[in-house]
C-alpha cells in the first residue's frame, strides 16, 4: 500500500466513518487492533486485507480501498470475530454493512469478490421470482454468468440420482408479496442514497 496522508483521509471521509458506525450499529472507534479477529478468522488466509486491517481502514476513512477489497466479500459471516472481540465490536455486522455499501455505490468487483457477489445475485433473483430459493435455476444462472457452463455438472448429476434436485421451482402462493419486498427495499435505499 503506498503512503497515505491520514489527516486528509480522515477529514475527507468523516461521513463514511460515521455512516459505517451508524448503519452497522458498531462502535468502530473502540477497536484497539489486538488482532484477535484475524487470529480466529477461518478465511483470513485467503483475504487481501485481514479482518483487523479492514476495521482499521474504516477507522482511517480509507473508503475506496476497503470497499474494493476482496476481504469484505470473502467473509463467510461465521461471526467468530464478533464472539471473541474484547472491545465488543461486531465485525461481522461491519463487513455486512461494507458489502451493502459497495453494492449501493456500484463499486466494480474483481476476482473472488466478483464471483461471490454474482452468486448472491443469482440466489436472490430466484427468491425474487419464486419466493423461495430455486437451487437448479440459481446454479444454471451462475454458470451462465461466470461462463463456466459445466461447472458442478458432476455435482448436479450426483444430486439428481439422490433426488436432491428439483427441476421446477417451488413457487410461493403469494410470491408477489416477496417481489414487493425486493421492490420496496430498492425504493427506500435509492431514496437514502
Amino acid at each position, binding site marked *: 500500500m503506498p503512503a497515505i496522508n491520514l489527516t486528509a483521509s480522515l477529514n475527507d471521509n468523516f461521513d463514511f466513518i460515521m455512516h459505517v458506525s451508524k*448503519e452497522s450499529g458498531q462502535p468502530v472507534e473502540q477497536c484497539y487492533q489486538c488482532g484477535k479477529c484475524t487470529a480466529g478468522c*477461518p*478465511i483470513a*488466509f*485467503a483475504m487481501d486485507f485481514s479482518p483487523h486491517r479492514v476495521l482499521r481502514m474504516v477507522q482511517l476513512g480509507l473508503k475506496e480501498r476497503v470497499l474494493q477489497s476482496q476481504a469484505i466479500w*470473502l467473509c*463467510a*459471516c*461465521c*461471526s*467468530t470475530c*464478533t*464472539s471473541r472481540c474484547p472491545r465488543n465490536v*461486531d465485525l*461481522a455486522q461491519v463487513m*455486512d*454493512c461494507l*458489502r*451493502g455499501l459497495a*453494492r449501493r455505490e456500484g463499486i466494480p468487483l474483481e476476482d*473472488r469478490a466478483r*464471483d*461471490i457477489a*454474482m*452468486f*448472491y*445475485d443469482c*440466489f*436472490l433473483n430466484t*427468491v425474487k421470482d419464486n*419466493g*423461495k*430459493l430455486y*437451487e437448479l435455476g440459481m*446454479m444454471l444462472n*451462475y454458470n451462465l454468468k461466470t461462463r463456466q457452463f459445466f461447472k*458442478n455438472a458432476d*455435482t448436479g448429476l*450426483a*444430486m439428481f440420482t*439422490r*433426488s*436432491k*434436485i*428439483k427441476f421446477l421451482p*417451488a413457487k*410461493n*402462493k*403469494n*410470491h408477489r*408479496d*416477496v417481489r*414487493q*419486498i*425486493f421492490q*420496496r*427495499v430498492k425504493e*427506500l*435505499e435509492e431514496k437514502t442514497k
Partner: protein
Amino acid sequence: MKYAYFPGCCDHTSAREYDISTRAVCRELGIELVEIPDWNCCGSTPGHSTSHLLGVALAARNLALVAEMGLEECTASCAACYQRLAMANVEMQSNKKLCDKVNWVTGKPYHGGVRVKSILEIISGLQPEQISSRLVKPLDNLKTAVYYGCLMVRPKAVQVDDPENPLVMDHLLQAAGAETIDWCSKTECCGASLAISNEDVVLKLTGKILAEATRAGADCIVTACPLCHFNLDMRQKKINQVFGTGYRLPVFYFTQLIGLAIGISPDDLSFNTHFVDTRKVLELVG
C-alpha cells in the same frame, strides 16, 4: 407442544434428510410441527450481505405469518434459517425505527411476540428420560464427532449454546447411547456458501474438519446445519481427490441418529440419500 415450523428452501432438495428426519423424530416424541403457510426464503447469507433491510424483511415476513397462525413459538431445522429468523426477531423487537420500515416493506406488520427456537433447542429441551426411555437401538458402539458449525452458536443474541465449546447436542447424543468424542473443530466454519464461488477455500476448511474428526477417532460426524452437511458429505470425495486423503466418514443430521435410536427405520430417516455410504454406521449400531 406445538410449534410453527419453517422447513427452509432446501427441505426437499439438498437437505431432504434433515426435513424428513426432523418431522419423523418430532412425530415420535410428541412435538407437533405445523408448517408455516406460504413461508418464504429467509434471505440467508445473500440476503443480509446485499442489504441489511432486505435480510430483516425477508425473515420478518415469516414471523408475521407465525403471528397470524396464532402460535407463540416457531422453529427452524436449518441453522441458517434459524439464525436469520432469530436475528430478525431480535432486531424487530429492539429497533423501533427499523421495525416500522420493515413493516412497510413487507406489508405484513409484525411487532414481536413470537419466540424463535432452533429444532436442536426444542429436542434437547426434553427430559433425558424422554429419549432414554424410548431407546430401541441405543447407539452404544458409535463414536460421534458432534459438529455445531457457526450459525447456531453465534452471535450472542441468538446463540443456542456456548460459542467455543457447545455441549447441548453432545448431551442429546449421549442420551441416545452414543459416545461423543472431544475434538477441536466443533465450531469451526466449513466455509458455507463460498463453496459455489470459491470452492478451493471450502475444500481447505472442510478438509481440516474431516482430518480432526478422523484423528479423534470418530466413526461419523453429526451436524445440525444443511450447509455444513452438504460441504462435509458431498464434497468429501472431492477433498479426497484434491488432497490425496481417504476419508469415508458418514455425516448425519442429529435428528437422523436420534430417530435411529428411538426405532425409526433408516429408510424413513433418508439414510440412503447420502453421498458417503452410511451402512458402516448401521452395522456398528446393529
